């Protein structure tokens, strides 16, 4: 093979693999990117069971219950407009508590309960999950204020 042809072959292979990888990435992003939902979005749009999403809002006061096994918790997440039941097995972050913000990663089961595989709560006073920026929860009225 002549050097010119060979260069062409290499360039074509390179181009094909880059385009292929781009398409692959695009299709995977469509499937795997976890969209952020607030409870009101869940109620309005519906989320199919098993699809990985992030659910964000505040933990409703008085809704946090611990199962007998000591490691499973149930709670409701609200954004002031709707409520979604959620469950989590594991060691919850220390700043995870009632009336406090949370972003839960996971998927809905068939009964409409959100099964969280990971909880992202505030790390410390300075850190807040980005999705919850501007959300404030009124603990007595259970109202959410959203300041853009």
């Amino acid at each position, binding site marked *: 093979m002549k050097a010119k042809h060979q260069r062409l072959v*290499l360039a074509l292979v390179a181009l094909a693999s*880059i385009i292929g*990888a781009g398409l692959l*990435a695009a299709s995977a*992003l469509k499937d795997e*990117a976890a*969209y952020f939902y607030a409870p009101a979005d869940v109620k309005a749009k519906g989320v199919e069971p098993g699809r990985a999403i992030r659910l964000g809002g505040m933990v409703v006061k008085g809704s946090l219950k611990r199962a007998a096994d*000591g*490691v499973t918790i149930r709670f409701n997440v609200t954004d002031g407009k709707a409520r979604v039941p959620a469950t989590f097995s594991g*060691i919850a972050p220390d700043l995870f508590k009632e009336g406090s913000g949370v972003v839960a990663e996971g998927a809905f089961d068939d009964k409409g309960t959100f099964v969280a595989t990971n909880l992202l709560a505030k790390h410390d006073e300075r850190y807040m999950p980005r999705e919850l920026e501007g959300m404030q929860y009124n603990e007595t009225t259970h109202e959410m204020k959203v300041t853009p």
Partner: protein
Amino acid sequence: MIAEAGLAALWLAASLALLQLFLAVTGLKGGKAELLAAMRPVAVGQGMLTAIAFSLLITLFLRSDMSVLLVAMNSHSAKPWLYKFAGTWGNHEGSMLLWVTVMGVAGGAVALFERALRRDTHMATLGAQATISLGFYAFLLFSSNPFARIDPPPTDGQGLNPLLQDPGLAFHPPTLYLGYVGLSVAFSFAVGALLTRTVDAAFARAMRPWVLGAWILLTLGITAGSYWAYYELGWGGWWFWDPVENASLMPWLAATALLHSVTVLATRDGLRAWTIMLAVIAFSMSMVGTFLVRSGILTSVHAFAVDPERGSFILALLAIYIGGALALFGWRIGSVREGAPFELISRETLLVVNNLLLSVILGIVLIGTLYPLMTEAFGHKVSVGAPYFDRIAGPIALVLMLAMAAGPLTRWRRDRVPAVAKRLAIPAAAGAVAAVIIATLAWGRMGLLPLFGLIVAIGVGIASLAPLWKRKLLRTPLFTWGMVIAHLGCAVSLAGMACDSAFTVEKLVAARPGETIRTAGWALRFVQIMPLAGDNWTALQADLAVDRGGNAVMMRPQSRFFTSPPTTTSEAALLTRWNGQLYVVLGEEVEGGRWQLRIWWKPFVTLIWLGGILIAFGGALALIGRERRGWLAKWRARRAVA
């Protein structure tokens, strides 16, 4: 006084950088290569001044000088000295000062030690290094001054994020930065070669040790960072595809590709334009990473500051440097002559495949990291996590491993398929045997990716040793050893990753003191829970007597409470055995006096980091081997003259 001296040193360093640039421009324009002699002390002086400024900032942190804003914001007098010391770079301004320090010192080293480069290229390289430094000096001095005072000084500081209060912080960020920013040298070399039209084998031989050096440190830094995240976060994972982790992985992928293409350029004088391109991309990825992390545009454990002004400043620097380098590339690349040709079946082709696959993985990581930003512009909040990266980058990485196995067993320039196949027969057979054994033992209990990962790791591990086959081991050159060990390291690391994701056993319980928990052949007797106090924290500690049919060993996971700033962290307890690690995390107290415990048995997980260390060690051997050959040649030449 110390703060003012530090600021003065920084200003002086910046003016020396300006002088360095001026000398380079005058020298290159007037064709006065002898000006290089004048640039050397300037570059060295600049490096020393940045080092002085950085040492002064360390001094301020060690003294807990609360009249300095940065110290007051990020330190606390009650902190142990190690964290005062390491806290210097555990914040935005300090880490940017570390950045310019590494850049200055690297520039000084290039001025002092580089002897193989043509003189005009050397000047242009130092000029380019000064240009990049200037942008970051401006960033520090105008928008992130680490030495700013606060008046009146507070009585005490706000403390350092307790997650960062770990001995790992003293080692992992500086190493990472040395590699990360060390790549600026490769960038400057590329710019220098383009400006003076010297893209050839001799240039590649001069550039290679610098690339190799930065790459070794980057490898070590990423390995250390991964282990740090593994034991400090207490989540049992070793890689989270966090934007900041990706920010260090992307330059590494580009640098690994560069390392291989520069070898093609140095030995076979091929891939000229591509090598220059990669050198530009590698450091561009370092800067993109810095932008992502420092602008606060992405949420991350590592994001110190959310500040749009700083973000736009770094974005502007990014646009100028990357855009400038790419424009120069487009303008000058036509004048780079075609390199030496090679046949389709040759080591060159496999190295091209390596480069292509590494670039594709780099693209995939970059897209995944930036995708949330792009969708947020359209009002959708999205996160891209492990499922995306594993699904797409995983299989490509496995194919890359196969190319890695075949590469060293294929001849330069021209080879024949049957000959290569013959050399690959034994590793392939071993891989096939492993495949059959693993598939019969673990079919259905193991994901496809870990299954293939383990098989590929075994085959590639054996193939990576094959270049030593039938050679006199003591007479084998050090750089061949280096390559063999680095490739073996990849296989070892892959084996660790596959074992961890396939065979990890996790147990989550709430237990009372006195109970015994059994999992994966281990018995953990929960002895007691007791309070504990450290320098700036109090803790609850669980004592567990752990055994596997032998003598019991104590494991002591803790839950630590820090007061400044008020935070709780969990300190996992780790027990390392030759065949894996037992990992225990203490949770909170629940009804009935029970305590949450999360226990993992992770078979062969340590191979992941052992592999990383092997890769870096292989790189070090290759570096010493190449350099020693240069020294020997020089020594012989001198003796011949005498």
